[in-house]
């Protein structure tokens, strides 16, 4: 046509011909034009509108009067608080003694989310479910808000005076003072406790862990002459053999280990390479579920197998081995030979870990690691770990002292012995007999209820403190909020009772100035060092290394383990990933977190293997009574529902620790209450049963395995609230299936197959050319996710991260039983194989399909597609037909069946103001953390730079300890997500239906020779 286009001059390459949608910064909110027609507003419409407006205004003004509420703005804006803008403070996680680094996200003056600190040398950005959930404990309205003296609320002055008076008399009388604590890795607190104890003639600090690793430390005492816990370096190991150590789940430092483990197994599809991991265990643990080779053994067989591997390795090394294998049983010969060969071939690059509480086994493990030259390589004892310091022998002598009434004053910090030790009523009475019992507990628990004084400590997010999880790696706790109650840090309490009252901050700083600062060489000036450390949340100091202790071969002594007769059952008490030793039992997020393996929430249960359950005629949910004879005394029987756990050894009953806490009585009203709603707690008003009475403190270590368990059916049933009731991708056999169908939802392969360049087993090519033109052109960004299923350990940190980020309600046990859990992110777990099962995990969230089945069926357009590929749920438009949820092939949509319980106003402070709290009757689902995308977009517009790859991290991705989840822009060919989407291992779930999911999964790879190896080996074992 005749119209002339004015020529455009460009000033830089990016702006001119080089401009693509990616580097251009979008200035408008909507990258695509809104399809609103140009409005013709003529005189007539104006008059109509004006008339209507006048009429409505007249009617409205006559009808109602808005109440006058005067809002007063800040005259001077408080520093750092900008409404709607979040700040991150680096701190340390107080969820357990592991001491992972966190970034505390503060919004409007309060912490609303914990994120892993990517700079932290140990956790490197990951954070586990417990760590994520520890935020909720800050806003627990049942946390003690003031000190208590003899069961009633008192003032600090009152409490201090009374304690000081009693301590003064102890000082003169020379009575025994004991501090009983969990592992304290804080150097400042440890120093302060020592200073406090120095005032007394007979004073001792006794440490125990509910999940004890005491045997490892004791073994090193014998083999290396020093009571230490090695710092395990899984990333340096190419062969990992674990004897019942659940290092990805609950053992010592799972976040760090998960990252290390995943780093050793990241597959580059061009030259695939990964570490080899064998797990020998009796129950099905998270770690076992990820093993390349998992051998299910009777607990007492572990020692025998270890012995024979040790003997074989000694033979290979040509050194002497003092212990003869006991039996001539050759059932594990092939396994032993294979493992010994693999370990020997990777000398110095292998790692043997053992989770047993039998010191002799640990010594054997040390011998093997020493023989393989792993000390100094994959086990660091120069800079040992301090994450488990419990000394069960000391604990035993303290309990004896308590029993004899020899203790004058008992200080309890971070422990709950009346709950988690086997002593039972005798221990309770012994504590009650003690003249002075002071607890620093944050809540009224089983033990603090017995204390004369409760001097509640701050929540870790309220206090100044430090941690040294691994020697030379220090973390700082810095407060992110003003204390919510009249609590006081332990550091201050001890200082006051010592007669030198000082603020915790000063104590901490002085300790760092005196003890930490001189050990480092980088910063010349303490203030700079301090500021840097506080800003980063951690500090690494180079220690002056002394020669690490050497292995002393003499410590290896012959031993024999008696194994129970065939058919007899052993009880294995294990920590669940969410409950650990029960310290967070009052945390509803953790109670409702499905166990990664069993998928059961809100309960503990007796896991039995399918074979044993069949033999005993038990079905899932049958209540059984477990009885163990402890020291010839009849133990209190334990009544638990049966859960059938594939992969578990036939002679084992596994029961989780940490349940049956008194504090779980609060969950009676956890979920919505209605006419026909069931109870959210058990008949005794609690969640689960306490298994601690079944523990045994014998031979100087806490034993989690008990023999000679009697099991009897009592004829009751107990429903287990499971979020997944079908466990296999092979269709149920009771249906006559044509062709024995196996669903291609998760893909698995082996390293051997990858090396051989095997093509995908089931080539599925989604229809690439649709019948209709694409609805969306995705000219700007196109958000997508990639999840490496090889890296995913199923640890469920992402589930809680998502819950915290997106204000996901807790629904209670009864609602979970009705299949109405609300988690946006779930971990699907499938078993493969018949007898010896493999486990695969698949994080499942809204797949943000390009051809989303939910979008077409919503009658009111409450779920629509964005121009950047997001499937958006518009809560205030939703009328709740639930058609979208029905039509979602991935069943990732969640409906608000009720108005969920949010009447705890303090707890509501945890809500993320950036995310709507959904009301009853609307649908919700994963949004790809759209609020985070928007924050990044605003920031990008503000600074005028395009959004960089990795700048947006979804909550699940941020938290993932093994970095399995990657989010980014698929339109940017260099983004990590785009690279992963091009990986040959990539597949989409149900892609053959042309839903075009935006979540790309990478096939599970196991380090095996072929597909069949595992099953073959296990069949040989019978």
């Amino acid at each position: 046509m005749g119209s002339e286009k004015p020529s455009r001059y460009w000033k830089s390459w990016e702006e001119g011909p080089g401009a693509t949608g990616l580097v251009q910064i979008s200035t408008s909110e909507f990258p695509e034009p809104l399809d609103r027609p140009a409005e013709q507003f003529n005189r007539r419409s104006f008059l109509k509108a004006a008339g209507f407006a006048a009429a409505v205004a007249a009617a409205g003004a006559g009808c109602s009067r808005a109440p006058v509420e005067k809002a007063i703005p800040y005259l001077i804006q408080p520093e750092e608080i900008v409404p709607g803008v979040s700040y991150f403070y680096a701190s340390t996680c107080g969820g357990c003694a592991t001491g992972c680094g966190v970034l505390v996200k503060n919004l409007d003056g309060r912490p609303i989310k914990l994120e892993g600190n990517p700079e932290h040398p140990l956790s490197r950005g990951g954070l586990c479910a417990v760590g994520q959930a520890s935020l909720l404990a800050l806003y627990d309205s049942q946390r003690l808000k003031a000190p208590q003296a003899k069961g009633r609320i008192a003032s600090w002055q009152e409490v201090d005076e009374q304690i000081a008076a009693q301590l003064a008399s102890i000082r003169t009388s020379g009575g025994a003072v004991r501090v009983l604590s969990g592992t304290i890795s804080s150097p400042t607190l440890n120093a302060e406790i020592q200073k406090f104890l120095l005032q007394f003639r007979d004073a001792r600090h006794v440490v125990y862990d509910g999940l004890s690793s005491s045997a490892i430390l004791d073994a090193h005492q014998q083999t290396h002459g020093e009571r230490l816990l090695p710092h395990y370096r899984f990333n340096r190991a190419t062969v990992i053999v674990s004897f019942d150590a659940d290092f990805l789940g609950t053992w010592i430092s799972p976040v760090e280990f998960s990252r290390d483990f995943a780093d050793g197994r990241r597959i580059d599809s061009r030259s695939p390479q990964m570490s080899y991991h064998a797990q020998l265990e009796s129950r099905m643990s998270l770690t076992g579920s990820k093993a390349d080779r998992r051998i299910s053994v009777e607990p007492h067989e572990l020692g025998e197998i270890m012995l024979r591997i040790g003997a074989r390795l000694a033979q290979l090394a040509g050194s002497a081995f003092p212990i003869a294998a006991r039996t001539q049983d050759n059932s594990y010969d092939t396994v032993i030979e294979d493992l010994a060969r693999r370990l020997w071939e990777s000398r110095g690059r292998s790692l043997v870990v053992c989770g047993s509480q039998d010191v002799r086994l640990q010594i054997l493990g040390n011998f093997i690691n020493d023989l393989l030259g792993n000390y100094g390589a994959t086990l660091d004892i120069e800079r040992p770990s301090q994450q488990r310091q419990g000394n069960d022998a000391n604990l035993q002598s303290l309990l004896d002292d308590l029993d004899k009434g020899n203790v004058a004053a008992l200080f309890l910090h971070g422990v709950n012995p009346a709950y988690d030790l086997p002593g039972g009523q005798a221990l309770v009475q012994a504590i009650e007999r003690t003249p002075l019992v002071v607890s620093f507990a944050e809540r009224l628990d089983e033990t603090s209820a017995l204390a004369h004084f409760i001097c509640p400590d701050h929540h870790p997010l309220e206090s100044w403190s430090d941690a040294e999880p691994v020697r030379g790696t220090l973390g700082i706790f810095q407060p992110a909020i003003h204390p919510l109650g009249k609590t006081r840090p332990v550091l201050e309490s001890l200082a006051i009772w010592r007669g030198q009252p000082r603020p915790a901050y000063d104590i901490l700083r002085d300790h760092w100035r005196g003890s930490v600062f001189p050990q480092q060489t980088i910063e010349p000036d303490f203030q700079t060092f301090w500021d840097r450390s506080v800003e980063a949340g951690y500090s690494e100091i180079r220690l002056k290394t002394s020669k690490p202790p050497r292995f002393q071969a003499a410590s290896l002594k012959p031993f024999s383990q008696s194994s129970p007769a065939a058919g007899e059952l052993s009880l294995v008490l294990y920590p669940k990933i969410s409950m650990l030793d029960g310290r967070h039992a009052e945390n509803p997020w953790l109670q409702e977190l499905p166990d990664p393996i069993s998928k059961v929430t809100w309960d503990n249960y007796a896991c039995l293997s399918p074979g044993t359950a069949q033999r005993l005629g038990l079905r899932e949910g049958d209540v059984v009574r477990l009885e163990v004879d402890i020291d010839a005394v009849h133990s209190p029987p334990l009544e638990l529902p049966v859960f059938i756990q594939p992969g578990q050894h036939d002679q084992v009953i596994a029961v989780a620790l940490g349940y049956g806490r008194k504090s779980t009585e609060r969950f009676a009203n956890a979920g919505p209450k209605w006419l026909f709603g069931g109870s959210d707690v058990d008949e005794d008003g609690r969640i689960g049963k306490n298994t601690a009475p079944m523990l045994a403190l014998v031979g100087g270590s806490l034993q989690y395995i008990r023999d000679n368990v009697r099991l009897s059916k009592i004829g009751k049933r107990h429903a287990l609230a499971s979020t997944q009731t079908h466990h296999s991708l092979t269709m149920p056999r009771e249906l006559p299936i044509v062709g024995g169908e196996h669903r291609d939802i998760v893909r698995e392969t082996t390293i051997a197959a990858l090396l051989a360049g095997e093509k995908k087993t089931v080539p599925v090519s989604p229809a690439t050319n649709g019948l209709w033109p694409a609805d969306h052109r995705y000219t700007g960004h196109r958000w997508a996710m990639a999840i490496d299923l090889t890296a995913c350990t199923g640890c469920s940190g992402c589930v809680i991260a998502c819950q915290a980020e997106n204000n996901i309600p807790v629904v209670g046990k009864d609602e979970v039983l009705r299949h109405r859990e609300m988690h946006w992110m779930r971990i699907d777990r499938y078993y493969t194989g018949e007898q010896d099962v493999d486990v695969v995990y698949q994080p499942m969230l809204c797949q943000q399909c390009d051809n989303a089945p939910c979008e077409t069926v919503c009658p009111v357009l409450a779920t629509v597609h964005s121009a950047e590929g997001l499937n958006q749920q518009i809560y205030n438009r939703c009328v709740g037909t639930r058609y979208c949820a029905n039509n979602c092939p991935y069943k990732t949509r969640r409906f608000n069946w009720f108005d969920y319980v949010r009447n705890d106003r303090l707890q509501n402070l945890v809500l993320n103001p950036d995310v709507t709290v959904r009301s009853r009757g609307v649908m919700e689902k994963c949004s790809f953390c759209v609020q985070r995308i928007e924050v990044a977009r605003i920031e990008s517009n503000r600074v005028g730079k395009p959004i960089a790859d990795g700048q947006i991290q979804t909550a699940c991705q941020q938290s993932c300890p093994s970095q399995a989840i990657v989010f980014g822009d698929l339109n940017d060919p260099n983004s990590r997500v785009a690279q992963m989407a091009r990986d040959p291992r990539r597949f989409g779930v149900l892609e053959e239906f042309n839903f075009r999911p935006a979540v790309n999964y990478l096939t599970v790879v196991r380090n095996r020779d072929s597909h069949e190896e595992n099953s073959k080996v296990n069949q040989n074992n019978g």
Partner: protein
Amino acid sequence: MADFVLTTRAPLIAGNKTPADVTRDICHSLEGRPTPLWWGSFLFAASLLLLGTLAVSYEIATGIGTWGVNRTVGWAVGITSFVFWIGIGHAGTLISAILFLLRQRWRTSVNRSAEAMTIFAVICAGIFPVIHLGRPWMAYWLFPYPNTRGSLWVNFRSPLVWDAFAISTYFTISLVFWLLGLIPDLATVRDRLRGGFRQRLASVMSLGWNGSFRTWHRYESVYLMLAGLATPLVLSVHTIVSWDFATGVIPGWHATIFPPYFVAGAIFSGVAMVLTLVIVARKTMHLEDYITLRHIDVMCKLLLLTSGIVGIAYVTEFFNALYSTNPYEEFAFLNRAFGPLGWAYAIMVSCNVLIPQLLWFRKVRRTLWIVFPISILINVGMWFERFVIIVTSLQRDFLPSSWAGYRPTPIELSMLLGSFGLFFTLFLLFCRLLPVVAMAEVKGVLHVGREPRGPDPERVMVGSSAQGRGMDAAGIREGGPE
């Protein structure tokens, strides 16, 4: 059409009735006091309605959580009952419109109650989509009305929107059709009553009917046109309801066979419901002469036909699933028949396909105590058909991780009972307030006047002329009891 003389078949109306007899017989039940049986039934139905009302109120106040539905099975008893009632509502229009166009004169005895049933069933059906919403107070958002929310409109791709249109259209047309058909009869009622509320109501609703030729002429034209308009609706409504499922991606829903399958099923269940009702009505209201065994027989044949279509649909579904080689489809159907809800499938097949085979026998078709339970069983089977389609398809779809069961709560079951309460309450009121048989139309098919040996030559003349109907009204006025 009045020249059409039934010579080879038995008369449609037994008892050699005169038009005056017809008026007297039909109006008799309206004019007397209600019987204890009526009161008993009414109180029972009303208490069911009350139970349902309480359940619905509780559900709306508390949340959909009071139902047994869950994250996997989002629809169950609510939508099942919706489809069930819509299906019931089909027979009315079929009988009144399609059979009218097809000149099936036997329809005249049952069309009034069938149409009433349609209206009430659609009312029952219309309640469920509203109360099953998470936020029922926002239900009006399903209609495209001009709003101030920018270009926000309904989603025309969603079958739920089409549902809203289809059902409201169907309800409107059915209601108009029914009210129109009532006009001559209401005029009769008006003329027989002496004052009172009912007389005034009849007088308003009969729209000044005077029985003139012109009135009759207009009436017949409009009736014919409305019948023509309503006919496609019989096919469209349930076709659209079936799209609620057919447009989904869920195996067991995603099937092109659904529209004919659903329409046949709807007619099947509707006719069964008409049978249930007329068998009761003919007994209690002494209408044996109007609703004869021949009517029952014809409707049973209709049942047999539709049962056959439904049966073929069941087989075809299975064949399609197995022939598709789509493992998800194959599994969905095997799971439907042999999975945890296999018992529901067994009820469905036996009630809908096996039991109706008895109707091949003329003896069975004419034995009321066999036909009556069959008609009820068919409706049980048809309710379960919808339940099976909805719940078994949802409970085990693509990802086994999300498979779940479903168990209804007492609230849901109360609502289902309440919908029956509403239906029967309305129907019992209808029996008391309006003529249950279309008098004017029945008079058109009377034997009287069709044979030369009529008892009264005057009446022979009335029956044989094209204007006969017009004079019927007059005849009633003359012959009616004072």
